[in-house]
């Protein structure tokens, strides 16, 4: 472990999480150590139920760890913070607000003109033009997730946490959404921590992939994806990394 350098954003040290359940203790996370640089795209993968979401919720400050620490820019995380926004898998947008209302949700401290400019900008960014006055009930699943990303980006966060954001979408929409997210990441350059159970998603998006073991989750492997964007998903290196990840998770790649 090195001292916090200029490019370092987040440091996770000996993080552990034990849930008390029915009188017994269930360990969900064990000795997680991780450094994330500013602007990095990190994917977290692991078998389902391993504690990926728990880890993300601890990093985002929604859950308190039972041991270890999370520091961001040298400051300990003690709770949720508008500088770091979590995007949920489903139902994350407020159904009682329009598209504009949702994007502007975190902007009440801005002046009216600034707020409207910010909303207009992010409506453009996530390509929801023409739906400004629509309610979430009238949007498709993919549009709702784009709206949630826009609401998160609008408050100008340093870090975006995404908890299987495309997990509830159909596979075609999912592929489109990955492209959109990469485009946004490349223009906005936020630090992104992205939980997924989809190996391809991880290899297509991430700078580094963190592989977690099954419960209690430990870091099994950290894999750097050294393919420049745009990535060719049939290149030998892509397939090699993909196989490596599948093996790490313990899946055979012959169906």
């Amino acid at each position, binding site marked *: 472990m090195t001292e916090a350098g200029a490019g370092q954003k987040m440091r996770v040290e000996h993080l552990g999480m034990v849930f008390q359940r029915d009188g017994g203790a269930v360990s969900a996370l064990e000795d997680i150590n991780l450094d994330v640089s500013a602007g990095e795209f990190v994917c977290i993968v692991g078998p389902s139920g391993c504690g990926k979401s728990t880890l993300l919720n601890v990093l*985002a400050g*929604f859950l308190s760890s039972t041991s270890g620490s999370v520091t961001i820019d040298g400051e300990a995380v003690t*709770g*949720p*913070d*508008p500088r*770091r*926004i*979590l995007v*949920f898998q*489903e*139902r*994350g947008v*407020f*159904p*009682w*607000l329009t598209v504009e209302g949702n994007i502007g*949700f*975190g902007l*009440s401290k801005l002046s009216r003109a600034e707020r409207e400019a910010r909303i207009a900008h992010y409506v453009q960014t996530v390509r929801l033009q023409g739906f400004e006055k629509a*309610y*979430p*009930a009238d949007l498709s699943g993919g549009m709702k997730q784009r709206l949630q990303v826009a609401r998160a980006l609008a*408050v100008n966060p340093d870090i975006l946490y995404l908890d299987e954001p495309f997990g509830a979408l159909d596979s075609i929409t999912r592929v489109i959404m990955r492209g959109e997210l990469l485009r946004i990441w490349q223009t906005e350059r936020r630090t992104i921590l992205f939980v997924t159970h989809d190996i391809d998603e991880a290899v297509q998006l991430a700078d580094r992939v963190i592989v977690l073991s099954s419960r209690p989750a430990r870091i099994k492997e950290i894999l750097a994806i050294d393919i420049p964007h745009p990535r060719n998903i049939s290149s030998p290196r892509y397939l090699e990394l993909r196989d490596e990840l599948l093996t790490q998770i313990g899946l055979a790649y012959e169906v």
Partner: protein
Amino acid sequence: MKLPVWLRPLLFIAVLLALWQVAIDRHPGQLLPGPIGVAKGILDLLQHGLLLKYVVASLFRVTWGFGLAVVVAIPLGLMLGWHRRGQMAAYPIVQLFRPISPLAWIPLAILWFGVSDLAAIFLIFVGCFFPLLLTAMSAVHNIPAVYVNAGRNFGLSSSAFVSRVLYPAVIPQLLTGLRLTLGIAWLVVVAAEMISVNSGLGFLIVDARNAGNRYDLVVAGMVLIGAIGLMLDLAMRSLERVRSFHWSISED
């Protein structure tokens, strides 16, 4: 022949009224007045200025009893629902009081408030308070955790959190609860007026019987109660259709 949809129930009612009148004409007696008799009764009330007076009196009591219950029970219920310990403490008491019919409170209401508007308002209040309290408690309980977490994530103050997340999130369930409870209030006011006051539609029904077996007026009172109850319900339903209120968890 194709009838407009809205005309069908009206036509059906007309047919039933006609059948009722025919039956009364063929077997005249004291058991039930016919629809024409009832209509004459309503006209009679209108001419004596009693119709408006009694309707206003009943609505006045419902407005106060229901309104007070809303103002007290909803904030209290939201607060109790939000704090799990509060809920645990209040729940047994609420469940104990809830099955007691508001009518069982009549003797105490008269003892405390005399034969007065206050007694009737109190009875309506009691009848509405517990259902509203439970509605508010369970509405908070049913808010999806994502809304709460998303609200917390954007760094809202407690008051902003209540007005911008908690309140809009419970509105659809509250509206349904309010509508059902207003129905209860309308049931209770009639009963309360039969015993504890000297005006209103409930009083009209008892008075018409006691003061000379005017069953045409009794049924006229019943018809008016039904019609006004229906209008109250329609008014509450139209509230539920307001766009930013009109979402539900299943629809999302």
